[in-house]
């Protein structure tokens, strides 16, 4: 069984929790960062392969428990002809009209996960770890700004 989670604005602790819960059942895990909001809210895609087979209802329950986007789960439950657990690797938000690609994270522990010091500014991802064009784009002549808040389907 495959489980594809869309983690929108999830806290870092919950992301780690979900990742390591799933890591108990499979070693085939993929993690992507899809976008970052202006206020620092992060959007992740987490895909787990080769999980034990369970019923559809149990998958939906698991997805709720793992902080998946509830609207997405509700649509998957309700609709019939649509493929389930879709995570787009290329998105075109209506606001910008420009394609946006997600970035694969090769390590889960790449962030400074906890610190006793308060953050002095909104976290800016390391350009070397991520796709360069995406983060180095400047809007309106100002410095780095977050991406749009459009949620992924």
């Amino acid at each position: 069984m495959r489980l594809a989670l869309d983690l929108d604005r999830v806290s870092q602790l919950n992301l780690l929790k979900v990742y390591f819960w799933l890591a108990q059942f499979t070693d085939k895990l993929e993690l992507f960062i899809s976008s970052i909001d202006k206020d620092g809210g992060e959007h992740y895609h987490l895909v787990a392969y080769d999980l034990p087979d369970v019923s559809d209802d149990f998958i939906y329950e698991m997805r709720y428990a793992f902080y998946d986007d509830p609207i997405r789960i509700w649509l998957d439950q309700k609709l019939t002809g649509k493929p389930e657990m879709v995570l787009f690797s290329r998105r075109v938000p209506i606001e910008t009209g420009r394609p946006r690609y997600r970035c694969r994270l090769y390590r889960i522990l790449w962030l400074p996960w906890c610190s006793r010091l308060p953050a002095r500014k909104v976290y800016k991802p390391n350009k070397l770890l991520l796709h360069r064009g995406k983060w180095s784009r400047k809007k309106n002549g100002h410095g780095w700004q977050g991406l749009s808040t459009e949620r992924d389907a």
Partner: protein
Amino acid sequence: MHVLAAEPKLVVPEREWRLEVARVEDKVRVREKLYVEWGRYASRWRWYRRPEDLERVRAIMREIWANIRDERSERATLAKKVVAPYWRVGIAYMFRERVPKPPYYFYAEFRITVYTRNPDRWAKWDPKEMMYKDPQPELEAELRELLFIASILAGRRHYEWLRAVVEIPGPTGRIPDFEAVPIDKSEVKAPLDVKQYYVRIEEPRKAVEYDNKNRYDVEAGRRVATVPGLGVESWFREYRRLVSEAYRRGKILSPSRFMQVGKQRTLDEWRAYKEEGE
């Protein structure tokens, strides 16, 4: 802990696979040596300014780049030798009223999905990122054509819907959303390499889903018996009939060119074109 694809299966004998991996490792090892050489001769050029050292540095840099290119191509072939057995390639185009969360005042979704074992046929492989990054242009053109057909047919049948689609403002030239993922066998819901069309229209009082064969009434919560002209596949037939009829009446000079324009333009561009004409 991470893998690049689900259920990786070797498509070549394991010996060949190991040789390929060793080849990539050799490239990396050679490059490490080259970096050392680069530093050595760059330093000599800096201190003694002998032109042969500079020549050597330039040759080494060229060699390093050739090595990097070779390694990339070898990694691409390596990735092709481990494949996931089933893939889902899908593109989608979604209109919505500018509200961040549902319920939207109006929502329309057009989607083409293909289940396949040969994703190269439907998507473009990016060797640098090691992933399928974009759909093949034919698939994208087909989605644009579907949008075009829907607007034409809706203009004949549901004027309200057409108006809603046409009146949504937005930039032109948007490319649809794309996914190419390895999936489990249980997730394959249709015959392989057959395009599955899916359209969903939601209005405040109505929500309807269309797919290849049937129409699903969301409010009734069941499939409505198939009616000719409601499945998305039949939209294409209907469109071809309309175009040939228009050609017969002399309204269109070239049916093939007309259909080609439908494939080239997004709905927004088509709208701008119409407005210019008026």
